[in-house]
């Protein structure tokens, strides 16, 4: 929960220039976000028009795109390939010169640091953390890089509180954001009409006093706090930080290092864009007479072959050695060296890797936490045994001979805030409660697609409109749609398994441009046993490939006949990381998962939705246990990599 610090001032949007003028005083040059060549880089800002007003970034592994016309906001683009080390620790910096004199004496002169006077405009919380880390690494130990110290001391820092996150951001997970805590002279939070401004140092306070601000209202402060809280919610789950150091160092022989090395190009892009990487080499420039040689400190990377080379050999000859070095340094040994993790969760290495390797995924596979953390981005209604919230039955639509979709209007709005893949427990007086995945969370209703399989479900489907039932939820871990942003998606539904996937499809279609190619394969028993027939055609018109197939044909059917795996086993999903969501009878999910794995979908990107005997839905009755998991609380959605061979095992 973010509490806005008391005494925030408000700078109207039209007076933003006043801030720029103040920053430029004393001959300072302002460095901030500027659009160039399809990305936002850090460059000189002379007026508010230089900032990327109205632009937003869409980032995902190996992909970065900017889109415009989103209004007037100046700081919606979260980051780009450059970080502030561009100015505090430049890529090429002459540091010394050496001269051999005719009398064989030698002269060594170090270059006196002469940094330009800069103001950094738009430093995010993760970047402040990166600057703190560099302060420790480059100037906080026994030996100090004087050039870095001079540049760092000379810069004025105007931070910007993030009100938007890219899908690659994971600052909250790394404990570095999104809230701006300290290290800034001034901090801005952008709202629609202007900026809340606060100061963090005496210099900043002096500047703030001279800005044409008024006191911020409580409404404005609440809006700012709310926006930042949303960013926190979006960036908090990716990395299980507790004990990561030891877990990672225990895995030096994990075969995954070799597997990621097969994808890794050792191109060093991740280290170049990383705001905390600091490895450099000395490059010599000599004149032809060999008298004067200038030494430059140049950005280097542990991924290059020369990095660990000595006469007679190389300490890290293989790509797997180098990837392991980088990941273990950033997420383990950095703690031993400098007392903090090296990663700040900015996500640049994920976006700017040319082949989309995602450190969050690699960590989850190489060093998973022992127990899955409890999920639940929302507060379920009636989340205690004995309580149910009231919902009123609305219209009923028959889908097939034994399945219908029932509309319910709950009293508690929490029941409407479900995410695709979550379920509810349905209770009726006199009948045992049972779990049903919602097939739609609407603005004022939920839809449950129910198969009349026994007395309780038949009872539900025979109630008239207006009757009341009890609901608990939304419960369980939803489909991780965030993982699919910027990637190709395969959705495989079997029979009634299409119901929990329907809200997933609708969520993708609502923001179609954020995803790559989307394929939905739907297998049903016969044409008459298909759900949502009209919607299937409509979805195909909206930019996803829909392939339907039935086990047995029916009258008038001119479509495909066969098994759903036949639509998948000739496709190649290995070229680019593809995310798969599968739901259907367990035997069908097993077959499909095997085929998808064979065709190149990695197990940590293959998600299934399981079903077990549930009586409470909230992990208290013990029925739905499966190995270490409670399916109601840790699932029902699981990644195949979490399940391992539990999935196909008899009697678990």
């Amino acid at each position, binding site marked *: 929960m973010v509490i806005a610090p008391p005494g925030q001032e408000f700078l109207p949007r039209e007076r933003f220039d006043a801030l720029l003028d103040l920053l430029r005083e004393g001959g300072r040059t302002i460095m901030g976000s500027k659009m160039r060549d399809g990305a936002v880089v850090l460059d000189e800002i002379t007026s508010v028009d230089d900032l990327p007003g109205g632009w937003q970034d869409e980032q995902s592994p190996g992909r970065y795109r900017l889109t415009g016309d989103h209004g007037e906001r100046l700081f919606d683009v979260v980051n780009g390939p450059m970080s502030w080390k561009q100015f505090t620790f430049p890529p090429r910096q002459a540091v010394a010169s050496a001269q051999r004199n005719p009398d064989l004496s030698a002269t060594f002169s170090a270059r006196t640091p002469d940094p330009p006077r800069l103001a950094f405009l738009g430093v995010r919380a993760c970047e402040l953390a990166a600057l703190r880390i560099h302060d420790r690494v480059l100037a906080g130990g026994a030996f100090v890089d004087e050039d870095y110290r001079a540049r760092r001391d000379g810069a004025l820092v105007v931070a910007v509180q993030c009100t938007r996150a890219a899908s690659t951001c994971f600052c909250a997970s790394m404990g570095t954001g999104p809230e701006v805590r300290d290290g800034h002279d001034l901090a801005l939070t952008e709202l629609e009409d202007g900026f809340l401004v606060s100061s963090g140092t005496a210099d900043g306070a002096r500047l703030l006093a001279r800005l044409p601000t008024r006191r911020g209202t409580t409404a404005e402060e609440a809006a700012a706090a709310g926006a930042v809280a949303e960013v926190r919610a979006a960036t908090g789950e990716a990395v299980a930080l507790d004990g990561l150091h030891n877990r990672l160092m225990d895995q030096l022989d994990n075969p995954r290092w070799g597997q990621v090395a*097969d994808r890794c190009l050792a191109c060093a892009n991740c280290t170049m864009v990383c705001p905390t990487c600091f490895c450099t080499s000395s490059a010599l420039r000599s004149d*032809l007479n060999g008298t004067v040689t200038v030494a430059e400190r140049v950005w280097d990377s542990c991924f290059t072959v020369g990095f660990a080379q000595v006469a007679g050999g190389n300490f890290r000859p293989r790509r797997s050695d180098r990837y392991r070095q980088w990941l273990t340094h950033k997420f383990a040994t950095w703690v031993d060296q400098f007392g903090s993790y090296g990663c700040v969760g900015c996500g640049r290495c994920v976006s700017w890797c*040319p082949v989309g390797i995602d450190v969050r995924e690699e960590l989850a596979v190489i060093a998973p936490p022992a127990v899955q953390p409890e999920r639940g981005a929302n507060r379920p209604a009636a989340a205690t045994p004995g309580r149910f919230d009231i919902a009123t039955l609305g219209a009923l639509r028959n889908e097939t001979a034994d399945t219908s979709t029932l509309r319910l209007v709950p009293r508690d709005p929490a029941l409407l805030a479900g995410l695709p893949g979550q379920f509810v427990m349905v209770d009726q007086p006199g009948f045992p409660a049972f779990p049903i995945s919602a097939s739609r969370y609407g603005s004022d209703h939920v839809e449950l697609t129910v198969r009349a399989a026994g007395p309780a479900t038949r009872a539900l489907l025979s109630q008239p409109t207006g009757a009341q039932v009890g609901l608990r939820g939304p419960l369980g871990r939803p489909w991780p749609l965030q993982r699919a942003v910027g990637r190709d998606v395969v959705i495989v539904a079997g029979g009634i398994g299409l119901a929990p996937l329907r809200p997933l499809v609708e969520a993708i279609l609502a923001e179609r441009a954020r995803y790559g190619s989307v394929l939905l394969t739907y297998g049903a028993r016969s044409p008459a046993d298909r759900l949502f027939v009209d919607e299937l055609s409509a979805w195909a018109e909206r930019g996803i490939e829909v392939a339907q197939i039935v086990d047995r044909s029916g009258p008038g059917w001119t479509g495909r006949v066969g098994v759903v795996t036949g639509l998948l086993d000739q496709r190649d999903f290995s070229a680019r990381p593809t995310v798969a969501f599968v739901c259907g009878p367990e035997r069908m999910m097993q077959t499909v998962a095997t085929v998808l794995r064979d065709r190149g979908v990695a197990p940590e990107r293959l998600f299934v939705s399981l079903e077990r005997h549930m009586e409470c839905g909230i992990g208290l009755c013990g029925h739905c246990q499966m190995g270490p998991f409670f399916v109601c609380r840790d699932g029902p959605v699981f990644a195949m990599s979490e399940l391992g061979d539990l999935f196909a095992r008899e009697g678990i």
Partner: protein
Amino acid sequence: MSEIRPPRLGVVKLASCDGCQLTLLDLEDELLAIGARFDLVEFPEASSRRSDGPYDVLLVEGSVSTPAQAEQIQQLRERSRLLVTIGACATAGGIQAMRNFGKEPAWRASVYPQPELIQSLATATPVADHVNVDIELRGCPIDRYQLLELLTALRLGRRPQLPDEAVCLECKRRGRVCVLVAGGVACLGPVTQTGCGALCPSYARGCYACFGPREAANVGSLSAWLGADRPSGAVDRLFAGFTGYAPPFRDASARAMATFQPPAATGEEPD
């Protein structure tokens, strides 16, 4: 290098376009200094002074493409203290190596009205396939600053700084935005050796690997990524260029060349 006399420097050419030799002349500001510090004994493109050796440093441009050149390179090796190959032809075979995939007779017949008069080997191969090479300068053409660094290092007696790393590092050092990640443009920078100063990405086009494959070039992974939204065969064609015969790129080039047919020989005079 002995200080008593300036080192004898030779520049010779096999099958090539001359561009790499020209790079030496492009070092306009340093040319006089080079001339003062080296004894330029053989450089037909620039000087009428000739010498058959011996050479302290011999810069060899071009690939071995004819029987005569195959013999010549052996003799040159014997007469050189340090043999330096310069350019894509000498280090990788060059674009002419695209005939190596069994196509030489067909291409020869297609280009020349009287192919029987042409004496070339079936393959155009890098110099290192024939003799030991001491130093390689990559590029098509080579980078003049790398050449200067080489000559300077030779004068000082230190190892020349020719980093074996991806073009990507230079792009990032110069603040260039990645054309692949931000624009979806096919770029071979991640598998290509640096040296050009990230020239092509500076103009928003993808690197086409004229400096050849770097160490640990992961061609398979990059090809798979690029191939995901390109027609089949397009990615292979990216590699079938000036350094396509270099071993990490060779398989892709072979596949690409398998789909190309030389135009039918018309037997007519060209326009």
